[in-house]
């Protein structure tokens, strides 16, 4: 499993295409949404968490599409499936890889987001990090499963968001609500129910993905 994660990371380190596209897309979304919500007005603190999460969703969806598409090129997926591994293990490795990529992208996007929206730096970073970690994990868990599902259909790129976003709605509601409340100065305890919900989502979809991934990739 570690070898699989390492393989994906190595490919990424050599080409840097996923990270670069994740990063640029995240930034572009921030930019476009800034046109919608005036980032200098009083509204910005209310709109900011939503903007951040929409940028995470956009960039993440496209990034996860790539993560399995590049296995399809040159039929690498066949090789991967022939390896003497449990399919669940492949799923966990892919999820971990997607999680790491999105996290790396956010390491750059979040400070820029704070910079553009003129938010207090350390306070925001400290407060948003737990939500971001939990949220990205759940997003990677469901995204990887449905990237494998949509890989088998026509119009792959369109299918992933169509399948995943409605199912992921509790994750997004919880993540956006938790970040909004945290950034407006509430203590961590006040949003614990949201964090629990995200954690439950993470667990549920890691288990569902681990169990059903083999059906999604079988020939």
């Amino acid at each position, binding site marked *: 499993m570690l070898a699989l994660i390492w393989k994906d990371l190595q490919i990424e380190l050599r080409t840097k295409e996923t990270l670069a596209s994740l990063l640029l897309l995240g930034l572009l979304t921030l930019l476009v949404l800034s046109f919608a919500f005036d980032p200098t007005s009083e509204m910005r603190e209310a709109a900011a968490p939503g903007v951040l999460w929409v940028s995470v969703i956009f960039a993440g969806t496209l990034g996860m599409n790539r993560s399995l598409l590049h296995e399809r090129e040159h039929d690498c997926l066949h090789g991967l499936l022939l390896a003497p591994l449990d399919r669940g293990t492949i799923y966990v490795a892919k999820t971990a890889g997607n999680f790491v990529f999105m996290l790396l992208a956010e390491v750059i996007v979040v400070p820029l987001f704070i910079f553009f929206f003129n938010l207090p730096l350390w306070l925001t970073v400290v407060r948003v990090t737990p939500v971001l970690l939990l949220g990205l994990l759940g997003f990677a868990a469901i995204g990887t499963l449905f990237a494998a599902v949509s890989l*088998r259909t026509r119009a792959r790129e369109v299918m992933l968001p169509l*399948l995943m976003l409605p*199912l992921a709605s509790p994750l997004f509601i919880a993540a956006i609500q938790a970040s909004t409340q945290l950034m407006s100065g509430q203590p961590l305890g006040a949003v614990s129910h949201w964090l629990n919900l995200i954690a439950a989502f993470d667990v549920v979809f890691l288990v569902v993905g681990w169990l059903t991934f083999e059906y999604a990739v079988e020939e």
Partner: protein
Amino acid sequence: MSLSAEKQTIPASATAASHPPIGRVARRDELTDRILAPATIALMLTALYLVFVAVPSDAFQGPIQRIFYVHMAMWLATFTAFGIVGVASLLYLWKRALRWDHLGRASAELGLVFCSLGLATGSIWARPIWGTWWTWDPRLTLTLVLWMIYAAYLLLRSMSTDPQQGATLAAILGVSGVVDLYLINRAVYWWRGIHPAVIVTKKGGSGMTDPLMRVTLIVTLLAFFLLFLWLLRLRLREARLQESVDELREQLAPSV
């Protein structure tokens, strides 16, 4: 070469194995035609009479409240349908029998139809009563999300390149949908938990004081539930016939 030959034989043998005995199927179809269909029609006519003629108008809401009987019946059918999709998906992944897949698909189609009608009737009711076609009430939000999940479920099937694979992929979505239900429910209730009072007025506020109102509700619920079952059985029969047609076609012209 060998690979394509294998592909042709696999679906044929799989479908043959999953076929229930012909006699039993024919008898069930007969029961559907003889009993379920007339019962549905009779109950539906009774329900129409009760809703439009017999039952008194609501004291506060006026005649618009009559839509509630139909609206409630839509939800019963919708949630039964989506529940069946979840169970059928799970059974399909486990047993790999094609009839579970037929059941899941037929149920999702009907569920989506009833869900759309439920949203429509709800909106028509909400316009005069709440003063708006739509609010982000938890229950409405939940329904909208469900509608999208099952619309994606059907889209996924039509987008898949191979029917067998489409069935498997859709089953994964069906299982995920049911597992997700509780989480979505929690999330939308916490999100919009500030004013749940609108729901209370919908049922409790005006109340079903007249006994005829209760009778009407029960008859309407039953009528639409039977309608759902009838349509489900028709849809399943259609899927089964389609399967036999495909099989025959395969036997007659295996190369096409």
